[in-house]
């Protein structure tokens, strides 16, 4: 496959092919950056770092590009394949099109981790999994140690090993998510330290925590897997990616003055054709997509040459690529070379080894747009209903394709305190005619893998194999009940609600070899929360006081008050009264004797 033909394919294929080429060198390192301006003045920056270590040297703990810290953790926990994701924000598929890497390099909001662990049984696998999460928690400064049994699932059909594993291994897939984890610079620093050039040179020198975490969407991933060639030679491959969608306007603001103050009057871009347009009245004209920007402006720093550890072969010396129409002018640093690909939209840059690199795009009206593919499937998941006792989940799948149905796996791991009623699973389908039809869920759901929750031990795991017909929208709904927690189980911010992990959708597309992954947004579940504060205490106290007062008065009113003689007469009638009377008489006699003695 030549390099030129390679770039004539669409974006996705481009990234995938880059990723698979030259995978068999025994020990090498590659890095690549793709910049892709998206509609609504956004810019997708997709960083990829990949290195190999031969299986032999990995086993002998002879690490070169593979970080020792990570390698030893994997060996200790008998982990054969590892996928770790840190994600914030949401991918706006409506404006930005399909996801980078077909969604295979992103996770749900927060932290997501799944790994294939070699172990003899389920218990041993889980013990090793806990070892793994605890160690990674320390390495990445993330709360991965909170991935306990309630947050761990064992998906059946949603994930497949990406590496080539030996048949001797007894692999167990374990999957855990932390939807509430806030990804921040403390996670970026250890991530950068795993890179051979550690953010000092090459494309990783562009990483700035302020810009990275100001992105509208960003995802960091670490994937480690064994890859074997046909002749049985195996390498351990580590691949790190950082994808982010930056808002160009926002990123261009200087750090000293980041506040988007109203612009001065004379800088307003007004529609002068309006009859009311004047000095103090302005109907604004929104700027179009062809905004001017440069690497230095967007990332706040320039690219420091090339990482000297990079292997220069084939395409990998062109480590920075840009997807804009060829008609658009791009200014680059003098030492770098520009290579235009013949697909009309991609150009790559050959960087000078030690000189800083910058590229800038001036504002320029363009006629052609970089085409964006339509996403294969739209998915949206929301909680419906209100109240603190029960609710419902509603998942909408839209198939925009007019010709073929979409088959996919829908995977949901729910916390134990959300108790779904699977018998209430209903499906409605809206066809191209826009008519809503109620269909039995079995018509849409082909297979179900369901593992019910056990209170405080494990969450619900639900995997559905679904099929959405062409040009239709399928709505799945089910009801759930909210459990009441013990009062010590509430977190300090109980009234915020509890995060429910994003659902994972794996599209089984025959056209692509690699599956496409989509993740829904995470949800916030309001649980019945005791009022840990005052007003209800006041009600309770007032009610108690009223009850006490009422009780006392009622008691005084209703109680029969009689003289001692009457009481004796009344009491003497019953057996208990007689026995008691005898006893009292006896006591009186004894007491009477005592007083006499005195």
């Amino acid at each position, binding site marked *: 496959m030549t390099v030129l033909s390679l770039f004539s394919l669409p974006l996705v294929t481009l990234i995938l092919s880059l990723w698979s080429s030259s995978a068999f060198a025994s020990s090498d390192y590659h890095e690549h950056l793709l910049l892709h301006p998206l509609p*609504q003045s956004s810019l997708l920056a997709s960083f990829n770092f990949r290195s190999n270590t031969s299986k032999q040297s990995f086993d002998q703990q002879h690490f070169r590009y593979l970080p020792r810290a990570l390698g030893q953790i994997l060996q200790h926990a008998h982990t054969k394949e590892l996928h770790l994701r840190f994600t*914030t*924000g*949401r991918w*706006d598929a*409506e404006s930005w099109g399909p996801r980078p890497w077909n969604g295979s390099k992103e996770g749900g*909001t927060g932290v997501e981790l799944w790994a294939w662990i070699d172990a003899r049984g389920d218990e041993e696998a889980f013990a090793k999994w806990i070892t793994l999460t605890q160690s990674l928690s320390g390495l990445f400064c993330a709360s991965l140690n909170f991935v306990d049994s309630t947050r761990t699932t064992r998906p059946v059909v949603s994930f497949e090993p990406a590496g080539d594993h030996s048949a001797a291994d007894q692999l167990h897939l374990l999957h855990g998510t932390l939807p509430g984890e806030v990804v921040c610079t403390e996670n970026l620093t250890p991530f950068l330290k795993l890179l051979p050039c550690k953010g000092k040179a090459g494309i990783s020198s562009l990483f700035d925590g302020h810009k990275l*975490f*100001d992105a*509208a*969407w960003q995802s960091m991933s670490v994937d480690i897997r064994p890859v074997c060639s046909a002749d049985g030679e195996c390498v351990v491959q580590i691949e790190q990616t950082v994808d982010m969608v930056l*808002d160009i*306007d*926002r990123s261009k603001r200087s750090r000293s003055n980041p*506040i*988007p*103050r*109203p*612009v*001065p*009057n004379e800088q*307003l871009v*007004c*529609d002068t054709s*309006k*009859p*009311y347009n004047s000095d*103090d*009245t*302005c*109907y*604004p004209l*929104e700027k179009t997509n062809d905004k001017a920007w440069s690497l230095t402006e967007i990332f706040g720093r320039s690219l420091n040459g090339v990482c000297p550890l990079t292997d220069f072969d084939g395409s990998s010396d062109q480590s920075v690529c840009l997807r804009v129409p060829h008609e658009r002018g791009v200014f680059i640093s003098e030492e770098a070379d520009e290579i235009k690909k013949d697909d009309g939209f991609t150009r790559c840059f050959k960087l000078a080894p030690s000189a800083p690199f910058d590229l800038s795009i001036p504002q320029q009206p363009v006629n052609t747009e970089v085409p964006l593919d339509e996403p294969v499937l739209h998915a949206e998941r*929301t909680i*419906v*209903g*209100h109240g603190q006792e029960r609710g*419902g989940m*509603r998942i909408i799948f839209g198939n925009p394709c007019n010709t073929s149905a979409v088959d996919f796996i829908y995977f949901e791991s729910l916390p134990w305190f959300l108790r779904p009623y699977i018998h209430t699973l209903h499906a409605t389908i809206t066809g191209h005619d826009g008519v809503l039809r109620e269909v039995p869920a079995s018509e849409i759901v082909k297979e179900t893998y369901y593992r019910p929750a056990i209170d405080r031990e494990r969450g619900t795991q639900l995997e559905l194999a679904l099929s959405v017909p062409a040009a239709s929208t399928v709505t799945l709904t089910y009801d759930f009940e909210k459990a009441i927690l013990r009062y010590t189980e509430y977190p300090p*911010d109980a*009234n*915020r*609600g509890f995060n429910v992990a994003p659902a994972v959708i794996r599209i089984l597309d025959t056209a692509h070899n690699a599956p496409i992954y989509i993740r829904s*947004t*995470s*949800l*916030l579940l309001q649980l019945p*929360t005791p009022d840990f*504060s005052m*007003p209800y205490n*006041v*009600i309770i*106290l*007032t009610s108690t006081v*009223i009850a006490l007062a009422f009780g006392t008065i009622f008691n*005084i*009113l*209703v109680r*029969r*008050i009689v003289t001692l003689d009457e009481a004796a007469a009344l009491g003497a009638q019953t057996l208990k009264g007689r026995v008691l009377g005898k006893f009292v008489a006896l006591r009186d006699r004894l007491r009477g004797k005592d007083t006499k003695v005195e």
Partner: protein
Amino acid sequence: MALKSAIRNLRNNPHFLFARLPNLLSFICVVVGVVWLLLLPLNEYSRQTYISENALLPGQVHAYFTGSEQNIFRGYKGELEGLLNDGQARGGQKDEAEVTAAVSDKLQSILQAAGLKIATQKYEYTSAGITHRGENTYAIIHAPRGDATEAIVLVAPWITADDKLNLNGVTLALTLARYFKRWSLWSKDIIFLITPDSKTGTQAWIDAYHDTHPASVQPLPLKSGALQGALVIEYPLDHRFQSLHIVYDGVNGQLPNLDLFNTAVAIAGGQMGIGADLQEMWGHDDSYEHRLQTMFRGMTKQGLGYATGAHSSFMPYHIDAITLQTKGEGWEDEMALGRTIESLCRSLNNLLEHLHQSFFFYLLMQSNRFVSIGTYLPSAMLIAGNFTIMAIALWMRTGYYPESKPSAKHKNEKASTEEKAKTNSIAERHLALPLSLVLGLHLLGLVPLWVFNNIFHQYFTITTYIFVVVDIILPLLLAAILSNGLGLSKPIIPQQYHLIKSFSLLLLGLSLSTLATLNFSLSFMIGLLCTPLSFVARLPGSAPFRLATSSLGLVLLKLVSPPTVLLGICWYMGISVEAVLTQAAFGWDVWGVWTQVVVWCVWWPAWLIGCVLLGSSMF
């Protein structure tokens, strides 16, 4: 010792214990209950408001909504005005629907150009034969870095709660949408909702947001996360304004968290220097009278339970919401209102948890003074308690001695020894008739409830007058049947009158004390109107005396019957009965108001039974 002997004396005087004391206690309860309420505005009983949720930090940020944003505001306003005037100028030529569609398209194009996600929702409600339809337009700013778990709503209805065109409010919402989009600090999505009116639009939208909407309302194509708060912008004036009027009452007397109100007051007053008013009390001088008046206005709105603005519909879903209305003629312009809203949004954006710290049950008497539930609740509880005390006393009385004697007065003259003997004899209670009568009459309340919520609005006035007549005939008819045993095997005995009253008052006391914790004001108002029912009973004495007294009593009781009270209020306020009942039916159908249930299934049956008891003295 003295107490003991007093109690002994009490027991030896059963007439006092069972007949006099309950009356006295009930009366004291009512008086104390009313006096308690009147004491609340005093400094000793009310409290200064304070911000309980530290995360809100009201007014701690600088609001930047100034400068050239005003040019944009004028630009958007010119654009919308042009479209509206275009429709007006051509009058008959251009259909109203066409103008609405053009305006809706313009809103969408402006919001879309600003980079928001837009969607629309059509809805239709039918109530009392009137169809309300419209189309909501809304747009979402996705929180940068956010993942759609939480959201704030900004609502701008085209028609305000006072039926005025809210052009400035809608324009301000559009300008703010464009301005907010630039900020990267939002932790929650911000939803801009433009509704056609203040009554139906938000209700349709919020119902659909939680998927509880009726079939006539379209589902929402675009959603965000859990809603944390909502602000409604109303600026119907065409000049600068003087102060902000904060409306906070929700449907069924539910209130937003006091922190939200306090934040609005703190930002308007403290940061922006705009005065904040409440309950239409302009020129509140913080005197006792004004405080009391403010509190009564709040209680009236709470008691009637209707939606006072576009914000009210949010409350049943536990979403705190307020309306900001501009009032008076002064120096503040739309940018000041915009900065207030910006600052409020920043405060709400700071929230880590759903608003829960401060009070949900309170009575406000000034923008910075309130009483909390612990202080005011005893007032309604005492009034509800008076019925319970009476009911228990009657129950005990029916059990202790048979009322063979014709009058209580007569009893009193008897020798105490004889009395004592009587009290010890235990009477059997005949429960079947009283129980079935009381339950039957309460179920009968469902008839007017159904009628007044389902007939067409033209018939409301006539139906009310029919009901006034029914209310005269029905108690007398029932009383006649009961006293003469028409169709019954045997006539009713006096004990059963007491039991009827006891059960009726027991139910009333039970309902009202429960209601007091949910809707204090409604419970208080109904309790006060029902107070005479504690003291009416079958009269003793000679036939002419009974006839005269009971007729007079019936006329007086008639004055506090549900239809008469309705007619009286309509006459006093100068509004038509039809308008009130149409609004009530609308509240029942659309907002889910249950004031009617309390009126027809709690108040009306209790009143009816009171009348039957009094009416029975005629026969």
